């Protein structure tokens, strides 16, 4: 008998008989009654409390903010999506303040050292945010691969102001996650951090040292 069969058999032939049923009709849902403005306030407050930076911008001036943020950090280049609308807008803007623009359009195996050592910042879209915890919802795609929001020292995330959910549960329900999960779905709340050395917080231990959220349509 395989280990699989042995384990399942042990679980099915319980000494105490079937586990008493837990009523399936007992379900719960966590409800928050927040207005759009309250959600944005709360998101910003919590994101900032974990060392994230939040900028409120309009649909027209967000690229100015992006350029600003990059210039302040002296970024030499910026990794952007090729197909997503934010990538298209950045390219179309031809903004003079932006550094060299790069695409993640080859398999990681072909350019791993460059990504790890030479990319200063990346900008990605988000699928919204969660007010309750100050969290970004990030679903990497072929256009915005998984390491894009992880390896460069600065991650800039673009958030549509009207895409802030109250709770994680609400996001799962309204976006119907259960019908098909992507290869990788992420909740991101601040830059990478650790407290493993005497409980002292240090940022950027493995992932980005900085997380900057540009909220579009928050004017």
């Amino acid at each position, binding site marked *: 008998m395989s280990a699989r069969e042995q384990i399942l058999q042990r*679980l099915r032939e319980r000494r105490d008989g079937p586990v008493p049923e837990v009523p399936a009709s007992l379900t719960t849902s966590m409800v928050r009654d927040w207005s759009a403005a309250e959600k944005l306030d709360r998101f910003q407050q919590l994101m900032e409390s974990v060392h994230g930076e939040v900028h409120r911008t309009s649909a027209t001036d967000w690229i100015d903010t992006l350029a600003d943020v990059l210039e302040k950090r002296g970024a030499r280049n910026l990794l952007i999506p090729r197909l997503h609308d934010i990538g298209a807008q950045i390219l179309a803007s031809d903004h003079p303040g932006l550094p060299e623009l790069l695409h993640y359009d*080859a398999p990681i195996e072909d350019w791993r050292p460059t990504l790890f050592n030479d990319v200063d910042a990346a900008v990605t879209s988000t699928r919204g945010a969660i007010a309750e915890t100050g969290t970004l919802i990030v679903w990497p*795609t*072929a256009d915005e691969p998984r390491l894009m929001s992880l390896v460069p020292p600065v991650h800039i995330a673009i958030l549509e102001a009207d895409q802030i959910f109250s709770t994680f549960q609400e996001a799962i329900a309204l976006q119907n996650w*259960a019908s098909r999960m992507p*290869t990788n779905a992420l909740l991101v709340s601040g830059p*990478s951090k650790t407290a493993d050395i005497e409980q002292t917080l*240090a940022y*950027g231990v493995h*992932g980005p040292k900085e997380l900057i959220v540009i909220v579009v349509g928050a004017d």
Partner: protein
Amino acid sequence: MNQPSQHPHSVVQEFHPRAREALANPQIRANFRKAMDGLMTKRQTAFEGWELEALRDLGANIRQRALSKLPDLLEQLEANLTANGVQVHWANDGDEACQIIRDICVAREAKKVIKGKSMVSEEMELNHYLEAQGIEALESDLGEYIVQLAEETPSHIIMPAIHKNTTEISDLLHDKTGTERSHDVNYLTASARQQLREKFMQADVGVSGVNFAVAETGTLCLVENEGNGRMTTTAPACHIAVTGIEKVLEKLDDVPPLLALLTRSATGQHITTYFNMISRPRQPGEQDGPEAVHLVLVDNGRSSIYQDNELLETLRCIRCGACMNHCPVYTRVGGHTYGTTYPGPIGSILMPHLLGLDETQHMPTASSLCGACGEVCPVKIPIPDLLVRLRRESVDGDKLRVSEVRGHGVKRRRVESLAWLGWQWMHSRPQLYRLGTAVSARLRALVPQKLGAWTRYRSAPRLAPQTLHQMMQKRTPTAANTSQQPHREATR
């Protein structure tokens, strides 16, 4: 501090010496006290404004519901993961799980494994196993990395290096990696980042744990702050997740309440920096992520816990560590004193099933049954009741209930059993009890002032000149004092 021996029998014998050593070490005492005080405060703050009891009910309900359907959910998880392109393996014990991982590495000609935090892999002693096979296994969680460099084991399931202070860590990094000595935590962290980034680029295989495995969607969820978990599960060409069979959840909708409980209970965070949900290997057209993803489901004693309705509740655990943070015993002696993979209250109710009561007999007694652990448990595991259950099994103390845990009866001693039998004999005979206590009160001057372990730290208790029975019998105010009337016979 000494490291726990690999030999479990000495784990039992070494508990007292190690406890004494830890208690006498001001460094250990201060490190743990400070850390646990901070964690308790943070947890409390994190739940302010929440209906914590209702949320804990919900957490317990979700976990219990998953356990009530465990075999079905495991099959559903396997079917959905397989459909998603993830390969699922099953292991009866740690050795089988190690072999599965070795075989995957060998087939890929992998020589370098990078690891994210996984308590199950500690349980399996995976690192030693792989190294013996000539495969390098490097921990990437900063705390685990420190502990591995020091050739130690974690002293806390969430904060593995909590027993060390900055000076010790700085010295260690200097000696093992050549990092310049510094008290600047940012500098030490940055230096570890540099070293580990190289390792991530070179690693052939990433091994991670799993916090929740969602059957409904075939999704593996990982909770972390550092990003090493994301790195481990994304950068190498192959990702092997390893988890206990109890970690499965029925629905995606079950995740948010448990996540809310887990991070707040563990570190007082609203949420961790990353919550990483993996459902597939790299798909055509995707530029990164592992081309192969494996899940190893490890039993290692869990199915035997599963046999019993009471013990089953142990399996609700989501490994937050709050029971340790709130345990006055753990706080004073630290994790290494227990000598087992999982220390503290959860360790004391889990390890006896993994190693047998004979090899963990010190654990169920290493508690004052104060109940702090059960009070904070986010999934309401009745830890004190389970400790009593294991104490009962240690001495085979109940003829009406079967003892089921391996090694039960190990602590049954003739002298102690006789003493309790004598206690029973006296206390179930009221007249004899009254006579005995009255005589004791009369002869109280003869009570010795030294009573073994008790009087090492306390004066001996003093018997009162009369018992309450005597006082009450002499009193008149309460006419209905029933002393002289025969009682209705107890139902027997």
